[in-house]
C-alpha cells in the first residue's frame, strides 16, 4: 500500500533531517580544531615530527645532558629545553637574533649558541 510506504519514507526522511545538524556540528567543530592546530603547529606530519623530536630530546637531556632540544626550538612554541620567542620556522636563518631563555640557569642565550650553552649548562658530556 503506497500509504504505508509514504508513512515509512517520511519517518526515515525526518530521522535524517534530525541527524543532519548533529553531524554538521561535529564536522564543523573538528574542522575548526584542525585549523587551529595547523596555525599553531603546522599540518599532521609536521605535528608528528614535533612530537617525536620533543619526546627524544626530553629523554636525552634527562639521561645524558646532551642538548638536542635546540634543533627544534625554532619550530615549536615551548620546547623541552627552553622557552623560545616567535615560533616561526622561517627564522632559522636568523639564529643570531632570536633569544631563548635557558630554563636551567635563567640566562638569555642567542639561538645559534643555545646548543653549546645547554651542553655546558647541564653538566656537559661524560668525561672519561
Amino acid at each position, binding site marked *: 500500500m*503506497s*500509504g504505508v510506504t*509514504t*508513512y515509512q*519514507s*517520511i*519517518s*526515515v*526522511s*525526518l*530521522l*535524517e*533531517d*534530525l*541527524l*543532519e*545538524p*548533529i*553531524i*554538521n556540528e*561535529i*564536522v*564543523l*567543530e*573538528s*574542522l575548526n*580544531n*584542525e585549523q587551529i*592546530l595547523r596555525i599553531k603547529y603546522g*599540518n*599532521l606530519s609536521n605535528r608528528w615530527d614535533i612530537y617525536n623530536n620533543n619526546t627524544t630530546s626530553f629523554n636525552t637531556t634527562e639521561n645524558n645532558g646532551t642538548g638536542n632540544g635546540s634543533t627544534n626550538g625554532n619550530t615549536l612554541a615551548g620546547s623541552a629545553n627552553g622557552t623560545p620567542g616567535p615560533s616561526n620556522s622561517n627564522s632559522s636563518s636568523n639564529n643570531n637574533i632570536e633569544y631563548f631563555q635557558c630554563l636551567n640557569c635563567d640566562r638569555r642565550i642567542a639561538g645559534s649558541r643555545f646548543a653549546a650553552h645547554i651542553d655546558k649548562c647541564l653538566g656537559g658530556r661524560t668525561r672519561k
Partner: protein
Amino acid sequence: MTNQSDINTLKLKIQNELIQSGQYDEISKFLKFKLIENGWFDNFKNLASNTISEKENPNFSSLIRDLEPKALEMVPDNVKEETLVKIRQFLDSVIDK
C-alpha cells in the same frame, strides 16, 4: 495515488507542525542524548578528526559529502528504532486531525 509533489507538500506541513509543536526540539535532544550514550558521538568525532587531519585542504562541503553517509551508517539500529518510534508517535498525533 499520491505523487511526489503531494508528498513534498505533506512533508513540509509535517515539518512545520513538528517545529511549532516543540516536538522537533524534544526528539532532537532525545536523539542526541542516545547518540552520546551509545558512543556514536565519540566514534564519529574521532572519524571526522582523523579524516580531516589527513587532508591537505579540508573543505566543509566535501567533508560532509564524504562523512555524512558514514555517520548515518554508524548510528546503531536500536537508536534509529527508538527515534523512529517517537517520530511515528508524532505523525500519528498530527495525521488524525
